[in-house]
């Protein structure tokens, strides 16, 4: 019997390898380094991320699969690599001071972030459903721990536990769905699944149920209604930096997998899923925006805001055309920048620990800290989708895609939702500039790391908002793999 060893090219997973090595190295060093001398860990992690990013750019324009078709090597995956690396890097920048305020010896924090990033990358690149599931679990387990990072804090504990229980619950559905797909087609490779569907197993009930359960599993991760209910509680209870990471990283990763599966495997049977997702998109957008209005805790408000943004992204998924795919990528970059930027400000305004996270703590910020308030306004305008920010261009692409695909009403509902969202986003700006401070909350301490995160995100939001062209081209380049659109 001969065992054929598939030829593998390690450089195809170079970024993942780098991160893996870096993560393990950090763990090892954590054990060997005396307390109080670990201040350089975050910077080490950043260096690893930068190396991974450079490797990714060098891989750009490679195509095909590797590791016995388990891994896709294509621009779509690379684009997401870069989003993840950006999100993780920014998260690290905004975490340093926040964690120091808690006086915690939390060096495993950075290791976990890096492992989570590896999980996300596997989800974006996975060519086999099990690999995607593995990536999801690597990501999720890291996040469970991160959410419960503050062991003494009841809320942090509650967040971690809720997320763990419900995450396990939804993972079960995801796996069940994969099993059904296997039952229907006899394979878990995305390529094979696509072949089988082309060959005409399209209306097999097993396949449809499997697909539906995939929607449940990923819908949970992207916090789509009605699988969203964990979001506000977990976002509120988890450490703010972790919330920031979850809100962009997890969402982007789950959407990466969702988009790849739906645009690669299921475009042929679009009619079977578009109306279902249509309904989910409308419910998600509407619920997120409507309930965000009633929130006075800024972390909860941003939680509902992230639900609403998941709804907008689902609109791009429903459109299922090339512009939809492009708008998807563009929107995720924009969302990463504006949401992380907003969370950076939340951390800053909260002063020490999470002392001030009520929206009324933002009163008068415009006079005390004009630069901070200006940056926050940029993020709020961007999240609300007002030009000339990236948020506007992103929404413009998403809704154009919906219109182009013939979903006029979906676009109208989306625009009306944006209108509702203006209320709670601009409320923050109004409070900052038009209300005097209610009490002296003490000084905001800016560190170079978090300042640079604010600067990068604010500048980025404006830059890709004013000059969307280059990013659009990059996204166009990345979605060419979806020939079925």
């Amino acid at each position, binding site marked *: 019997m001969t065992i054929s060893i598939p030829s593998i090219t390690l450089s195809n997973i170079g970024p993942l390898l780098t991160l893996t090595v870096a993560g393990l190295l950090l763990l090892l060093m954590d054990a060997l380094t005396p307390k109080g001398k670990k201040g350089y860990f975050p910077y080490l992690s950043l260096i690893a991320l930068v190396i991974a990013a450079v490797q990714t750019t060098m891989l750009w324009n490679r195509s095909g699969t590797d590791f016995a078709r388990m891994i896709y090597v294509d621009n779509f995956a690379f684009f997401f690599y870069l989003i993840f690396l950006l999100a993780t890097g920014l998260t690290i920048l905004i975490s340093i001071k926040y964690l120091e305020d808690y006086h915690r010896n939390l060096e495993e924090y950075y290791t976990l972030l890096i492992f989570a990033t590896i999980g996300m990358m596997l989800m974006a690149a996975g060519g086999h459903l099990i690999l995607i599931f593995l990536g999801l679990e690597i990501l999720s387990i890291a996040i469970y721990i991160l959410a419960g990072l503050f062991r003494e804090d009841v809320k942090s504990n509650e967040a971690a*536990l*809720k997320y763990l*229980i*419900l995450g396990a*619950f*939804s993972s079960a*559905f995801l796996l069940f769905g994969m099993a059904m797909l296997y039952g229907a087609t006899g394979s878990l490779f995305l390529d094979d699944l696509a072949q089988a569907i082309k060959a005409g197993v399209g209306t097999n*009930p097993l396949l*449809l*149920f499997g697909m*539906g*359960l995939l*929607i*449940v599993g990923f*819908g*949970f991760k992207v916090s789509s209604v*009605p*699988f969203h*209910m*964990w979001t*506000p*509680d977990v976002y509120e209870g988890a450490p703010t930096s972790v919330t920031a990471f979850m809100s962009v990283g997890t969402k982007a990763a789950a959407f990466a997998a969702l988009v790849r599966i739906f645009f690669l495997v299921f475009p042929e049977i679009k009619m*079977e899923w578009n109306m*279902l997702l249509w309904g989910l998109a409308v419910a998600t957008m509407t*619920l997120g925006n*409507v*309930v*965000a*209005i*009633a*929130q006075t805790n800024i972390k909860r408000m941003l939680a509902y805001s992230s639900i609403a943004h998941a709804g907008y992204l689902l609109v791009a998924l429903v459109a299922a055309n090339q512009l939809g795919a492009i708008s998807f990528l563009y929107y995720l970059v924009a969302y990463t920048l504006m949401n992380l930027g907003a969370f950076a400000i939340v951390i800053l305004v909260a002063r020490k620990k999470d002392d001030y996270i009520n929206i009324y703590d933002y009163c008068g910020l415009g006079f005390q800290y004009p630069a901070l308030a200006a940056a926050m306004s940029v993020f709020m305008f961007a999240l609300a989708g007002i030009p000339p920010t990236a948020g506007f261009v992103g929404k413009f692409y998403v809704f154009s895609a919906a219109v182009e695909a013939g979903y006029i009403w979906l676009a109208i509902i989306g625009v009306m939702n944006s209108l*509702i969202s203006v*209320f709670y986003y601009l409320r923050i700006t109004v409070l900052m500039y038009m209300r005097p401070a209610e009490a002296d909350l003490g000084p905001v301490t800016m560190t170079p790391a978090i300042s640079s995160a604010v600067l990068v995100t604010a500048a980025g939001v404006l830059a890709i908002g004013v000059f969307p062209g280059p990013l659009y081209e990059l996204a166009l380049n990345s979605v060419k793999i979806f020939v079925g659109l």
Partner: protein
Amino acid sequence: MIEYVWLVPLVPILGFLFNGLLGKRVPKWLVSLVGCSVIGIPFLIVILIFREYLQLPADAKPVEVVVYNWISSGNFNALAAFLVDPLSLIMMLVVSGVSFIIHIYSVGYMHDDEGYPRYFSYLNLFVFAMLVLVSANNFLLMFVGWEGVGLCSYLLIGFWYEKQSASDAGKKAFVVNRIGDFGFLLGIFLIFWTFNTINFREVFSIAGTNFEVGSLVITAITLLLFVGATGKSAQLPLYVWLPDAMEGPTPVSALIHAATMVTAGVYMVARCSALYVLAPVSLTVVAIVGAATAILSASIGLAQNDIKRVLAYSTVSQLGYMFLACGVGAFVAGIFHLMTHAFFKALLFLGSGSVIHAMSGEQDMRHMGDLKKHLPITYWTFIMATLAIAGIFPFAGFFSKDEILYKSLVDGHILYWLIAAAAAFMTAFYMFRLIFMTFHGESRVDHEVLHHVHESPPVMTLPLIALAVLSTIGGFVGIPIIEGANVFHDFLAPAIAHVHRPEIHYPISFEVSMMVVSVIIALLGINTAYRMYIKRPELPQIVTEKIPLLYDLIYHKYYVDELYAATVVNPIKVGSDFLWKGVDEQVVDGAVNGSAGVIEWLSYHIRKLETGYVQNYALAILIGVFIIAGYYLGR
């Protein structure tokens, strides 16, 4: 040097930024130095460009300098690009030169004003916008300058904004100008719609080859553009803002409301001469509006007592002349008069500023008189400007005005000539009335004020002298009759289109006799003023009593402001009041607040679903699963 033409508008805006941002923190002399030199430098650049342009071979002219691609969308392209041709060169020279002189003058005039840096930053910004307006190579960039000068005019009219009348005047100017701008903008839209481009040269060449004389769309375009011109250049029916604009500082009146901005409309019509010659109807409208404005405002000028208002109505009237010239197809004559008018009218305003300065702010001529000996330099320069505007040989105004009168007769209609001649008579009369009331006769000056009457400092009188020289000899660039002596005409000719009509050659004797006639008309006006205000000072009183109704009508400016208030302003006010309180507050706000209320109610109720219990959340997921399963089962 030509490729650096973009420096011409750019340098003034640096002054605007400097004085606007730092003006309050730096010493005054630095504000003056920066404020003046950012105008002086462009002036020098324009002179260099002018010299270079003259030496260019004919096939290299005109020059277009593209700075960058400003807007590009579909087949619409707007470049930030400048056109260097005879017309824009003349305009750039006049604008930067006169601006420079007036900036210098302002150093003295505004010296004690609190808003000194603010004043210079606005003035610099104005020059930037004006230079963009005259040097742009397309309609949109021209419109940027067009709006920019409007903004600066508003800011500078209301410069003393604590004064109610000043801020009202600024508002009035802005609103009236907006009406005109609306027409201009529609004209630009129609141009793009028709020609698919907004570049001047492309539009004009397409128009010349593809459109017949009398084409409807060209007529519409030119009329719309002319609506813009009536607003900016204070023509009937939109002239009402200019007299009120005299609330601004006097150098502003000289620069913006006499020499440069108000002539933008004339420049624009001349720039678009290639379109206007295709639209005889529009040309007739331009001529009629110009002539009517000239006579109407000249007649109002007869009875005004505020020294600046006399000059303001005179400006409106002279602008009417320029449009009359354009209307009969004599675009060159219009631009010629624009230039000479810039010299002598700026001088008149600056001179009146010098008088007002000496009189501690008094503007009413009834409280002046016999100032000649106190203000010798002001007086003599003022005399030269007045002779120029009256059209006395050999002052600058003679050449340009005579050309307009002559052209309106031979290329226009005898009626045009009669109206223009009557207006010329009135101009000579009211200008000398002004001279006599201000500088001659018996002193009616307050004793308190008389003590302080003094000639202005050199920083103000030197600009007067410079302008006086220009007002005196500036006309010699356009000597008529002698072949080749009209260098102004020959230089400008390539940039101007000609009306297609059979050439008629009149004998030289006819042209010469018309010149004599026009000078005689001016002398008659002067003589009448002399008789009424020097020889028999009681005469004006008798005249007013003899024709009380007519005098009242003129004195109250034909009640045009009141007419507009009754027919336009008030109905709009009433209508907007209804739209505000009736429609907006009740219907629109009601709907908005109502739907917001519904959303809010929903928000507070849906949030209750968020119980905090994990089992409820899991149930929600399960429900979701059932819905999806049900969806697939039910199909």
